[in-house]
Structures are given as C-alpha cells and as structure tokens.
C-alpha cells in the first residue's frame, strides 16, 4: 500500500489493519496521565508481586531491640512498635491488596455484574425486575454496615468450613495462609460491588438490543448466546472498561477500610488498612510518623492511579462525555 508523502516524511506507517482497540490503546498511551497512572500501578503492584524478593526482612520478623526505629539504611522506612521492618510489611501489604482487589473486581464486579446486567437488559420483564430489585436492596444497605456485618458474622462460619475441609481432605495450611480472611473480605466486597456494574451493563444492553445490527443478527438466525457475546458485549465494553478501572480504586479503598476497622485481613497477614489502623493515634503521629505515613501514601497513590487511569480511558473510549 502506498504511503502519502506526509507519512513518509514523518516516518510513520499508514494506519492500516489497525483495529478499534489498537487505535484506542495508542491514543491512551499518548496521554501523559495514562502513562503516569500505568507506571505508578506497575511499580506498586510489581513490588507487591515480587515482595519476597524485594523485602529485606520477613514481614513478621520482630526485633525487640529495634522498636520504633526511625528510617535508616538498615530499616529503610523504620520499624514499628514491635520492631518489624515497615518497608517489608509495606511491600507484602501491597501483595495482599493486589490479590484481593483483582480477585474481587474480576469475580464480583465483572463476572457477577456483567452476567446479571446482560440477563436483565436482554430478557427484560420479570428477569429485569428481579435483578433490579435485588440490586436496589443492596444499594439501600449503607455499604459500610453491610460490609461490617458480613465480615463480622460470616468469619466463624467460614473458619469452621475451612477447618472441616482441611480435616477431611488432609490439605493443611489453608487457615494459616489466611484463606479465611480472603474469603470473608471478598464476600463483603462482592456483595455490593456488582450492583453498579449490573446497572451500567443493563442500560447499555437496553440501548444496543434495539439497534439494527442486532436485528440483523437475529434475523440471520444467530443464537441468543452468540448475539450476547459477539454483538452486544463488545459494543458495551467501553463504559465497562472505564467503570472497572474506577472499580479497582474503590475496591482497594473498601478492602483497606475493612482491615482498618479490624474486621478484614487479620494478623499476621499484613495489609495496608491494618497498618494504618495500628498507627492511627496521636502519639505515633507525633513521634513516629514513619509508622503510619508510608501505608497511607501508598494507598493514596494506588487509588489516585486507578482514578487517573479511569479518567484517561474515559477520554479515549467515550469521547462524547468529556
């Protein structure tokens, strides 16, 4: 294919065979805020993934001779009230946050929300009524109360279940590994995070299913499944992607809130919320700010980066709403 002189002089290839998504990705990477957001998230989450390599100490290693030490070359961010290395705890907490947000967003927000929204939007009538009403109930619960109640009441049940499972199968270490905390926090987060997504998808589908290309697909004998997956979903994706990006930030915030209140992730597993909760008093703030400020700043950056990415994605994918 011939290239125009302008393209030759700029040394760029003609935009051929490039799909909608490739164009969107290119536009995204041309935005400084998107690049900043992606870089921040990559650095933070990479340090979480490689926590065991990066951390100089074990996150639970207590050194009673080194209590409340100020940052030094030995302890980059100092030590906490029982002599644990703050930096090591921080990177391991990022791992906890990463696992929980990714699992919750993918299974809770994305999977449940997407499927229920698709069903409600496509089938309408009683399916729609049922899903919308259930969603309304969950929205009417003050989120924080629902999360607190779920986290506080289902923990012993889940613990029993896992213990029985360990006994009957011979698999050990699940409880010690903190699988209970993950399940409890995930349950509390998923309980409300699907509603917004389901509504968004439902609205998109209601509009899309009246379009001519869906009529055409139906007329040519496409199955319901095919219409949903091939025709409806890809066209509904742009706002969904934006919502997921923003969802990551708010789920990370909600997870930290639960742990902050002491009903999310339990010690000895490190979590950002827990670290903030333990450091949240005036004496520490006045005399040892390095105990509380690092997890606070890291969490702020995580939430801000997801918001920033969501905003940049919104610019690229939904240009009308700018």
């Amino acid at each position, binding site marked *: 294919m011939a290239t125009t002189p302008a393209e030759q002089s700029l040394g760029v290839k003609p935009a051929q065979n490039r799909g909608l998504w490739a164009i969107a990705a290119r536009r995204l990477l041309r935005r400084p805020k998107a690049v900043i957001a992606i870089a921040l998230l990559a650095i933070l989450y990479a340090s979480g993934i490689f926590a065991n390599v990066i951390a100089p100490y074990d996150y639970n290693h207590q050194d009673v001779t080194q209590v409340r030490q100020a940052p030094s070359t030995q302890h980059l961010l100092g030590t906490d009230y029982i002599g644990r290395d703050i930096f090591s705890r921080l990177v391991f907490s990022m791992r906890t946050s990463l696992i929980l947000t990714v699992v919750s967003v993918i299974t809770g927000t994305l999977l449940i929300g997407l499927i229920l929204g698709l069903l409600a939007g496509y089938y309408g009538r009683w399916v729609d009524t049922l899903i919308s009403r259930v969603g309304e109930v969950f929205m009417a619960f*003050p989120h924080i109360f629902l999360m607190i*109640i779920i986290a506080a009441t289902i923990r*012993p*049940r889940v613990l029993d279940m896992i213990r029985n499972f360990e006994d009957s199968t011979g698999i050990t270490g699940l409880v010690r590994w903190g699988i209970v905390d993950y399940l409890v926090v995930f349950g509390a987060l998923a309980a409300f995070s699907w509603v917004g997504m389901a509504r968004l998808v439902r609205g998109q589908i209601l509009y899309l299913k009246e379009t001519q290309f869906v009529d055409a697909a139906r007329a040519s004998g496409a199955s319901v499944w095919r219409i949903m997956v091939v025709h409806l979903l890809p066209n509904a994706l742009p706002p969904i992607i934006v919502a997921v990006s923003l969802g990551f*930030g708010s789920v990370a915030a909600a997870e930290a809130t639960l742990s*902050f209140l002491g*009903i999310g992730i339990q010690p000895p597993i490190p979590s950002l919320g827990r670290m903030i909760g333990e450091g949240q008093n005036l004496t520490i*703030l006045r005399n040892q700010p390095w105990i509380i400020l690092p997890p606070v700043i890291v969490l*702020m950056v995580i939430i801000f980066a997801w918001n920033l990415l969501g905003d940049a994605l919104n610019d690229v994918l939904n240009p009308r*709403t700018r």
Partner: protein
Amino acid sequence: MGVYIVRRLLWLPFLLLIVSFITFTLGFYGPGDPAEVRLGTRATPEAVAQQRKQMGLDRPFLVQYGDYVWRALHSDLGESYSFRGRTVWELVEPKLIVSAQLMGAALLISLLIGIPLGLLAAIKQGTWIDTALVSFALFFNALPVFLTAPFLVLVFVLRLHLFPASGWYGLFHPAIVLPLLVLSLPEVAVYVRYTRASALEVVSQDYVRTARSKGLPEFVVQTRHVLRNALIPIITTAGLSLAGLVSGAVIIELLFGIPGVGNLALTAVSQRDYPVVMGTTLMGATAFVVANLIADILYAVADPRIRYR
C-alpha cells in the same frame, strides 16, 4: 407524579423487610450467644439456658424474626444485649442527632464548595484552573477518610495547634472543623466532577447558542441558562452521595471520637449486640431510600420535562 410517589413509598416497607431479614439472618447465624453477652462469660450453663428461654432465643428462627418484625411495627426495636435494660431507640436517638448534624453540615459544605468549583472548571474548560480542579477531584474521588485525616491532624493539631484532636462539643465549636473538612473533601470532589460534566453538557445545547446569538450578556447566559439547567442532575447525585457520606461518617466518628450512630454501630458489631446492629442498619437504609425519593421528587419539580410513570 402522585402515583409515582405512592408507588415508591409502597416499596419502602418491602425494602426494609428484606434488609431486616438479611441482617437478622446474618445476626442469627453469626458468632456469639446473646444470653452469654447479657450474663457475662462466667455464667453457669444452666443460667445461660434460663436466660435464653427468657429472651425467647430458644424459639425457631422464623418465629423470632416474625416477632421482631411485629414489635418493630409497633416502634419497638428491642433491647440492647450489652447495655442492660436500655432499649435500642434510647441508645440510638441521641447519637442520631449528632450524626445527622455532622452529615447535614458536611453535605451543605460540599454542595456550597463543590458546585461553584465545578461551574468554574466548566467555564474555564481547558485552562490550568480546569486542570487543577479536575486533578483535585480525581485525587479525592473515593479516597477513604482515614487517609486524609492523618495529614490534616499532623498539620493542624500537632504542628499548628489550631484545633483539638477529638471530641464533640456541638456544631459550633472549633473541634468540628477537622472532622467536617475530612468528611467533605471526597464529597466536594464528587460535586466538582458532576457539576463540570453537567455544565459542559448544557453549554453545547441549542438554547444556550440561541441565548448567546440573541445578544444576551455572557453573565446572564451563564447564570440563567447554563447554571439553572446544569444543577438539575446534581439533585440526583446529592441523593446518591448519602451512601458515601454515611461510610465516611462512621470512620470520622471513630477517628475523632464523635458519639454518633457509626461509632455505636461499630461497638455493637464487635460486642455482638445484634438488636442495636439491626436498628442502626434499618435506620441507615430508611434514610438512604427516603433521601433518594426526595431527590427524585425534587428532580421532577425542578425539571418539568421529567415525567414519571
């Protein structure tokens, strides 16, 4: 319109019934024995059994739930398990007033600051003012209050000694400044974003172009044509933002030692005081649903184009 309001009001009891059922079930199968909570850990098993019978806890689940609903309908939310002889309403009422003041003031402040800033960002679209305001909004969006609080406390309490660190002395005491500020910031961010988006939407409408082309001064166009129409969707946002305000208030009350409903609910959950947990949850749900109903009605009043079926 009237039919719509009635329908929404009729849905409220059902909603509360479902919310109460979920809370009751979670509490029923949750940890802790209310009789033990009442008697303390050193009570004999016989005494606990006796107490359970007395409290009606030996009855089947559905009977207990039915009983709870029946009493709640007669405005009796039961007695607290951990505060002996105090009814739930006695415990909640004084805290409700504190929390309502806190949240009402925060809502007012965030509206009064957020809407003008959002309009400013829209008017100055593309300039550095717009960028700064949008960045501010993005930063504080969904930011939990326990992240901003440490910085503000560090600066205003520990360095500048401007305010006390905690306590509740009513709405007109310096101690309220920090909690209100921390609680309002994320809400301000919400209103900046929504007002800006809404104003930009209105600016591109035909009637704004008409207003300009018939020679109206820019100020009149902005106030009479843009502002008034841009504010309508904000009403809905205000109703929905109550959920975020409640979550924020719970933690603010904990952080700053404010005796509100949030603090009470947190204590109740940790003490397995389920009647109090249920009472506070039901009140929160009622407040949220009623607030959104009011927002929807105001929306219809403000915008005659809206027709509810």
